[in-house]
């Protein structure tokens, strides 16, 4: 039998000897295949230790093939290893656990690689890959060939059947009463309290529509676990899995610390033979949604349910593992390279990040923003920076020799992203591909960005701090060279931020005016640089505490085409109430209508009028409560607060209402008068609007308006100081 179609999932199963592969057939059918797939892990150490290990392995019950061979370790070169081929991939983790505890001093390789990654490395078949399978009459795969690569810009669309389940309220805030069910063109709402009819209805949908993907809201943390409990209590069938006789897999919730932020990951529920993705428990869902998850899975080789929930760091490591396995390089089980010793001065020189300049505070015209394109990944690829390559003597000279593991992994991803970006720039605003391209390029951006971080991460298998330092050193060199070039060509450099520069020169208004600058910078650095846009005007803001102290990356400006760009101000902060975000952006939209800087004074009164109106609306209770909500993350466990923050006080109310909130979870609340000063959204059904702390919100409004207006009004150098003084809002 020969079938073509798209790979839905690959996994190991107790009942199956090899691994199980689910395929969406091009003929519309769903296929379940089994594939005999032995896997190998390696051990290195002294000859006598390896002999003891050999004897130990021979005495184990698993079916194994042992051999002695030479393999390539990225850091140590060729090493003699004991190869242990395990017939059934399911048995490897258990066997290896016994081996590792009996022989803790040996060095192990390829011991904990996800089965899907091994499969991807061996056959080039990744999640959602369009491929051709030849199988025998028992559906055992004889051969499998991919018919596309993960680097296609426009892969064939996958005919996925998607069932969406959405409760009508956030279960961590209040108890949902209905479940919205939609698939194809069917939309229905089921009451959640009638358990048996609910289960019956869901079961019939699962049976008749037979979805490939169940897309839920709070499915991981609430919906599926509670459905499973109901199912058990009612002793009712519910075929969440397609794979018969298998239990649904549940993982516990956890809270951890990453990049100085506390992160909460809810409990997870994954299915077999079908996929389950929870919009609210997927990493970066708001940034790239389903298209981004698909892209993540395609390029990293991680199964969709994992790709949706894992961080881009795991994604980029997976890509490195696949490259390594294809190139015959061993993947160490634990990293064992230490940092090479440095003198204090060397450390001071090396231990630096990207260049972050202090901008020249104030309102500026004739400014253009120029950015290096994917700077850090670009540096790794162009200059061959990888743990095993030797850094050249000068910065911005490529390392000698063959491309290393990291550049090899990154190059196709970088090229794909550039291709998507350049198509995005060319296709029309209404092109249906637009959203997909954008989501995918965002997913890729995250992978590229984290790749740099992972070079410096102490536990990354292919990380090395010296490579990480080389990347930032090259970045600083490139930025400084760009500054020198710009100044040689008569530009003033107003601000620089890691991979971007803001340059100013009188009467430059056309993109082509910058061609020479971009070209010369490219020549001098070897890294492509592009025009982000030409500003009608831009304001670099001072610190809130001192008007003379500049702050990097806090600005707002308007491009020639009227588009607004803001960084670091209230509108960009997640804890700003939505109505203030809207107000600040609307103020900027009004100011953006000014044809030039010289016309700005006429538009400032219009912007202040908007502020006055918002304050009036606020006092008169015209602003919907949802728009007053403040969203904050609980930064630690409730117990450890000495004087509870507003967010912590809101959580206390939720806890009193019987909800469970962990550190890292987001809370929404309103500011109220008197004590406790906050009202947790959904804590109880009725909320009296008169409790809103109007003056507190008014302060927030004024602060947000001052960020925009104070900076413009204090611009004496533009000669409209006096005009503006008269109209400054009180």
């Amino acid at each position, binding site marked *: 039998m020969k079938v073509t179609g798209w790979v839905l999932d690959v996994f190991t199963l107790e009942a199956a000897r090899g691994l199980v592969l689910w395929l969406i057939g091009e003929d519309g059918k769903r296929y379940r295949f089994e594939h005999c797939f032995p896997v190998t892990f390696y051990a290195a150490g002294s000859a006598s230790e390896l002999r003891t290990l050999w004897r130990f392995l021979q005495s184990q019950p698993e079916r194994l093939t042992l051999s002695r061979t030479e393999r390539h370790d990225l850091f140590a070169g060729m090493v003699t290893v004991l190869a242990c081929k395990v017939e059934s991939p399911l048995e490897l983790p258990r066997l290896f656990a016994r081996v590792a505890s009996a022989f803790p001093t040996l060095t192990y390789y390829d011991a904990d690689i996800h089965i899907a990654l091994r499969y991807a490395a061996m056959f080039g078949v990744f999640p959602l890959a369009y491929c051709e399978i030849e199988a025998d009459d028992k559906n055992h795969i004889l051969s499998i060939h991919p018919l596309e690569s993960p680097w296609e810009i426009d892969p064939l669309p996958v005919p996925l059947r998607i069932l969406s389940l959405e409760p009508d309220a956030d279960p961590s805030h209040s108890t949902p009463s209905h479940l919205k069910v939609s698939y194809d063109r069917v939309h229905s709402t089921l009451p959640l309290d009638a358990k048996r009819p609910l289960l019956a209805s869901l079961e019939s949908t699962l049976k008749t529509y037979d979805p490939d993907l169940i897309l839920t809201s709070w499915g991981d943390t609430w919906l599926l676990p509670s459905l499973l409990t109901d199912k058990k209590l009612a002793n009712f069938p519910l075929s969440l899995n397609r794979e018969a006789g298998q239990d649904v897999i549940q993982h516990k919730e956890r809270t951890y610390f990453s990049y100085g932020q506390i992160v909460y990951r809810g409990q997870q529920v994954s299915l077999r033979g079908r996929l389950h993705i929870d919009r609210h428990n997927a990493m970066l869902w708001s940034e790239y949604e389903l298209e981004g998850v698909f892209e993540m899975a395609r390029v990293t080789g991680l199964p969709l349910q994992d790709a949706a929930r894992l961080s881009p760091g795991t994604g980029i490591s997976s890509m490195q593992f696949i490259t390594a396995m294809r190139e015959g390089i061993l993947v160490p089980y634990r990293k064992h390279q230490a940092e090479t010793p440095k003198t204090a001065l060397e*450390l001071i020189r090396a*231990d630096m990040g990207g260049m972050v300049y202090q901008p020249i505070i104030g309102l500026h015209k004739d400014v253009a923003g120029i950015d290096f394109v994917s700077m850090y990944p670009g540096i790794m690829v162009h200059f061959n920076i990888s743990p095993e390559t030797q850094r050249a003597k000068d910065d911005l000279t490529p390392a000698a020799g063959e491309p290393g593991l990291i550049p090899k992994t990154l190059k196709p991803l970088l090229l794909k992203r550039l291709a998507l970006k350049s198509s995005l720039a060319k296709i029309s605003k209404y092109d249906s591909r637009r959203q997909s391209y954008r989501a995918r390029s965002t997913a890729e951006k995250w992978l590229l960005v984290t790749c740099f971080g992972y070079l410096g991460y102490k536990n990354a298998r292919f990380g090395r701090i010296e490579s990480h330092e080389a990347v930032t050193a090259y970045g600083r060199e490139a930025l400084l060279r760009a500054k020198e070039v710009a100044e040689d060509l008569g530009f003033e450099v107003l601000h620089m931020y890691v991979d971007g520069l803001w340059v100013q020169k009188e009467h430059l208004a056309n993109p082509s005016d910058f061609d020479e600058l971009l070209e010369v910078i490219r020549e001098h650095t070897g890294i492509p640089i592009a025009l982000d846009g030409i500003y009608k005007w831009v304001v670099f803001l001072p610190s809130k505490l001192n008007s003379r102290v500049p702050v990097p990356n806090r600005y707002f400006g308007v491009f020639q085409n009227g588009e607004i760009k803001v960084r670091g101000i209230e509108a960009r902060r997640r804890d700003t109430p939505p109505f203030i975000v809207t107000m600040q952006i609307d103020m900027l939209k009004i100011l953006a209508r000014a044809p030039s800087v010289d016309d700005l004074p006429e538009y400032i009164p219009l912007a202040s009028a908007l502020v006055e109106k918002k304050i009036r609306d606020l006092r008169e209770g015209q602003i919907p409560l949802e728009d007053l909500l403040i969203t904050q993350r609980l930064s630690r466990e409730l117990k450890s607060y000495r004087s509870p923050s507003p967010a912590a006080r809101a959580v206390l109310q939720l806890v009193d209402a019987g909800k469970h909130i962990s550190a890292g979870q987001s809370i929404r609340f309103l500011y109220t008068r008197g004590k406790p000063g906050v009202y947790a959204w959904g804590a109880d059904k009725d909320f009296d609007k008169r409790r809103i702390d109007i003056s507190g919100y008014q302060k927030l409004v004024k602060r947000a308006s001052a960020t925009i207006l104070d900076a413009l009004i204090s611009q004496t150098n533009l000669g409209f100081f006096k005009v503006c003084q008269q109209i400054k809002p009180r």
Partner: protein
Amino acid sequence: MGRTLQTITDIFLQEQESFTRFRRALRRKDQLALDDLFISARQHLAAAGYAAHALPFETLLLCMLLEEHKEVMQLREQVNQLIVSRE
């Protein structure tokens, strides 16, 4: 990256802090002038960081001097213009 060593901003704040006793003993108007000097050093923190000098305060002093000298040059220019316009 930036994890082992302090950032230049941290170093700057620490250096500034180490002069609290000195600042306290100054007259009020001198205190304000001193604050001003520190603010002018802040304009060049990126360059001071890049310099990666073993004794960062030397670089910070140079940052202050730089801003002072810019001011002198600007004033000199203005005086020259005034003289020219009088003549």
